[in-house]
């Protein structure tokens, strides 16, 4: 399949953005409009008493599986149709600009499928564990749920996240530039327990994890990683996995590129060498400027992005402004996040609020008084190993611009006096 990170060819969209309407709104608000102008219906505002205060609403269980408010329908995964030839092998992006905290709601977690969503009847689900083991195992979903289980909050980032930005600023929205990430709580069985159940042979060096989807996508994982912290998850955020996230079971490979987190997991085979499958050779390898390519670049480098303000989340007021974003590192905990308002000339440490967990997203904030001047917003993650998120320029000096994958360079958002925000790069 065409990789979603490949630059567009002929069929580029050439439509103007929603931004203009948002900017018109932002512009008027910036100069201080009458708030009733912004109300959907001024009759609902005090001193009037709105209808929802006068009459009864829906009773309990009218919504047996709750959905977001009907006024939040704009909060959705979106795709970029020119990226790929078909939606069955494509990607949709998490609307990071609409979210806060560190946990991604299950229905908004980005999707990357290679052969569409497999719809698996849990009764017909089987996981096979075989190869260099004493006893090849056949497990049902009910079997998986009988093993001791663990709960872990981890980020999952596609190796191609920000891949469209290697040659320069291209997409106007952090949903599109950084939305191939989610962070949820996974529940499942440590791979180590399953391998012990099957009886690992001493020659074991790698496992192959393979999906049951129409691509039967597989990746090789070093045995040390599998035994260290990999999990076969069947739940996310407490409930069973969503179909698009691999229902009923997926592999969790903490801190490593999302493609290895094989969904709809049907088979674990133990071997003594990597399989060199298409997804770890022709794809998910990092082409350098000299034509050579890095392979097995599993770890996701430390990275961050300001989620608001951002192009899809323009500024609607002057005065105190909360700048917020996410940071993460595949090597451990995020130690600090710095924020710049002047394109990286000066930095200050942001406030991290909420949980700081090993290989999970952290949420950061930095407040400023905004008077309508141009801002060049940047954020810079520093992890506990001392790795500092590099500038795009520093990254390109080493990796060139053909890498597709592993673009963790510092993002710049330009806030204009109107409150509009655009994706730019700076000197």
């Amino acid at each position, binding site marked *: 399949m065409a990789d979603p990170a490949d630059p567009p060819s002929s069929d*580029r969209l050439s439509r103007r953005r929603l931004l203009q309407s948002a900017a018109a709104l932002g512009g008027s608000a910036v100069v201080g409009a009458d708030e009733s102008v912004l109300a959907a219906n001024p009759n609902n505002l005090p001193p009037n008493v709105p209808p929802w205060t006068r009459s009864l609403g829906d009773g309990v269980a009218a919504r047996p599986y709750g959905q977001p408010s009907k006024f939040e329908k*704009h909060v959705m995964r979106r795709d970029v149709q020119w990226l790929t030839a078909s939606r069955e092998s494509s990607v949709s992006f998490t609307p990071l600009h609409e979210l806060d905290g560190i946990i991604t709601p299950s229905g908004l977690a980005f999707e990357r499928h290679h052969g569409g969503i497999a719809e698996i009847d849990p009764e017909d689900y089987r996981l096979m564990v075989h190869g260099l083991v004493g006893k090849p195992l056949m497990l049902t979903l009910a079997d998986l749920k009988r093993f001791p289980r663990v709960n872990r909050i981890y980020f999952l980032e596609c190796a191609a996240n920000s891949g469209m930005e290697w040659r320069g600023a291209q997409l106007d929205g952090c949903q599109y530039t950084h939305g191939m990430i989610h962070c949820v709580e996974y529940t499942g069985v440590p791979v*180590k327990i399953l391998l012990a159940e099957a009886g690992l042979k001493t020659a074991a060096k790698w496992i192959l994890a393979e999906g049951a989807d129409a*691509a039967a996508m597989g990746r090789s994982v070093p045995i040390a990683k599998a035994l260290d912290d990999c999990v076969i998850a069947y739940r996310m955020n407490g409930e069973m996995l969503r179909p698009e996230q691999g229902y009923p079971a997926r592999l969790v490979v903490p801190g490593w590129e999302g493609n290895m987190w094989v969904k709809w997991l049907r088979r674990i085979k133990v071997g003594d060498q990597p399989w060199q499958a298409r997804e770890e050779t022709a794809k998910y*390898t990092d082409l350098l400027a000299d034509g050579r390519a890095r392979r097995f670049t599993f770890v996701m480098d430390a990275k961050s992005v300001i989620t608001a303000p951002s192009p899809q989340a323009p500024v609607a007021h002057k005065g105190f402004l909360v700048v917020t974003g996410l940071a993460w590192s595949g090597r451990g905990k995020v130690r600090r996040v710095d924020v710049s308002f002047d394109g990286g000339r000066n930095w200050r440490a942001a406030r991290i609020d909420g949980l700081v967990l090993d290989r999970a997203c952290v949420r950061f904030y930095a407040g400023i008084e905004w008077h309508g001047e141009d801002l060049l917003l940047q954020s810079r993650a520093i992890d506990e190993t001392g790795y500092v998120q590099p500038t795009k320029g520093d990254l390109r000096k080493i990796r060139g611009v053909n890498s597709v994958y592993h673009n963790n360079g510092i993002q710049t958002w330009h806030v204009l006096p109107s409150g509009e925000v655009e994706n730019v790069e700076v000197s």
Partner: protein
Amino acid sequence: MSKCRSAAAVAAVFLSLALLAPRGVAQTRKPAAEASAGQRVYGIGREAKAEEIAGWDIDVRPDGQGLPDGRGSVKAGEAVYMAKCAACHGEFGEGSGRWPQIAGGRGSLASDDPSKTVGSYFPYLSSVFDYVRHSMPFGDAQSLGNHELYAVVAYLLFLNDVVDENFVLSKETFAKVRMPNEAGFHDDDRERTERAFWNRKPCMTDCKAAVKIINRARVLDVTPQEAGPKPR
């Protein structure tokens, strides 16, 4: 009595969980045998039967492990390719629309417009064979018989000038094929080549002189127009 037994079972669960205690940043690299030693067996699930495994065990490694019986010529592969592949990948592997180009591109990897194809990029024949066996034709996966599979992969090699038109791919000839870009890959070396990104004292003030905008996404205008109700 039964209370005692269940207490013991709980303790056993805790013991096994203790082995999974959170680890530090440094990736622990224990030998496999040691890592699985001392873990209990739960007796959950059943032994997989050989015939069950055979139906799903379709991976193929660079050394040929996993290859099925079968053989196919370039000529036979051309027929399969034209019927099942050419609509997306083009008659000559040039790709149609956004569907992947799978032939050509040799010598392009260091250029501004690298073309990663079977001939220019795939390091091993198994990477191609295994992929076609798992995933192709797109939307009709695992529908090719073994002879068709060998044949169509032989044809891909021919399209990429790796073999000549008389070539027949089989379990035996598989090992003789070397892909042109096999030496083009090296393992992750970021911790050495990007050592400079580990920096104890990143600059905080006056880190550069003037800051100028050097490019902007809106000039390209390729961002999708947002669908659905607009934020109010």
